[in-house]
């Protein structure tokens, strides 16, 4: 049901873990399935220098977390905000239809983490 890219990211997830004192954290729950994803970012000069995720979810959710965090690493926060779940799915070479929503978790968690950083930063 999952393609090789998805399975590879699932098996060897990039950026799984936590950041001590992160610049921003976003945590979202999926109402449809009850799954949870948390993304933490470390930002220097408006650039994401480190990013980590933790996911309680299905294979698609873990692979999406892995891919999304890879995609934003090194990007400025404005560039990172442009990244959509559609791009994550494309980078993964597609997801089964009922699993598309799992990639939305990654987009939302990331955007929340950036929002959290911005709020902390402007304060």
């Amino acid at each position, binding site marked *: 049901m*999952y393609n090789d890219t998805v*399975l590879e990211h*699932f*098996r060897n*997830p990039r950026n*799984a*873990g936590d950041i001590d004192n992160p610049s921003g954290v976003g*945590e979202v729950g999926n109402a*449809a*399935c*009850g*799954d*949870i*994803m*948390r993304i933490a970012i470390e930002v220097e000069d408006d650039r994401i220098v480190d990013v980590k*995720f*933790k*996911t*309680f*979810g*299905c*294979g698609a959710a*873990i692979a999406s977390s892995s891919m999304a965090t890879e995609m934003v690493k090194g990007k400025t926060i404005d560039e990172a905000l442009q990244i959509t779940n559609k791009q994550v799915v494309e980078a993964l070479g597609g997801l089964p239809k*009922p699993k598309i*929503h799992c990639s939305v978790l990654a987009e939302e968690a990331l955007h929340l983490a950036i929002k959290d950083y911005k709020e902390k930063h402007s304060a």
Partner: protein
Amino acid sequence: MIYLDHAATTALKPEVLDEMLPYFTERYGNASTIYSLGREARKGLDAARARVAAAINASPDEIIFTGSGTEADNQALNCALALEKKGKHIITSAIEHHAVLHAAEGLKKRGFKVTLLPVDEYGLVSPDALEKAMTDETALVSIMMANNEVGTIEPIAELAKVAKARGAAFHTDAVQAVGSIPVDVKALGVDMLSLSAHKFYGPKGVGALYVRKGFRVAPFVLGGAQEKNKRAGTENIAGIVGLGKAIELATGDLEARSQRILAMRDALIEGVITKFTGSTLNGHRTKRLPGNVNISFPYVESESLLIHLDFEGIMASSGSACTSGSLEPSHVLMAMGATHEQAQGSLRMTLGDENVDGDIVKTIEALGPIYEKLKAMSPLYQKGGKTLV
């Protein structure tokens, strides 16, 4: 490869295949014809019917062959339409297979009232609860003999007695039971019972409905006069012959087979529960199918466990295979009062004839690093046992 998904389906036994093969080739006749080729097919059909009957203590004319366990369930539930004079109410349970639940939904659309009996934390349906739910309008009661997800064995004889006392027909879905535990239709006192060949090392796409003599079953698939007008369609002779052989094998040495499998089941349950802190057994400890293990792992989702196990060559399942395309947590575990997290983290491992003790050891070993890895990745788990959210 370690196959731990016998509740989903089983591998065809070579002896079963051997008996089936001639009916694909030289004995291809239509059993409804009168020449020798047709008579040969008829003979195969009759012999299979006798074997199925003997296996469940029925007589041959009480067996109707169907295209699957699902079809047998549908035919049984649709009998309610013919019992309308009694009333437009049926009772079933919250943990039935979708073959029954969705057929019940169909009856609802045709004006029936459907009561879903709740279950306790072990997945047991209570005869008292059935008694209370019965009304003068209750035409049919359908409760499964053993649950496909958690393996709980229901008190069918008692439940059937309650239904019969109020003049309602009683059906049991014994798809998971036949070939795993003793099934005697007379001792159970049921009017109808469904079974399916591929759950006991027979072919897929063939099942049977037992119908007690004197109970008027309504046809479900309409057409020709096959199966005494109770199930139309040219018979799947090879499949039916396979069902007959498979049920004879599975019930012939049931005691020895199930003792061996039950010992492995208990070793797997004990091994996992002891090794993984917080893991819990779903279902009943003893009123349980000999091959069923269903365990919830805290902090992780079962799909992730399954994919990792697959990388290790171990095939298991989460809940039922039929619902793996959906996001809903198992309706069975939810009915048993499981939390969302428990339901999401449930792993079903169902054992069968080709498993050996070494499979249990290897599975428990493989689960160790897999569970650690997923736990470390879970936002619900914090090292030191502190949980978030």
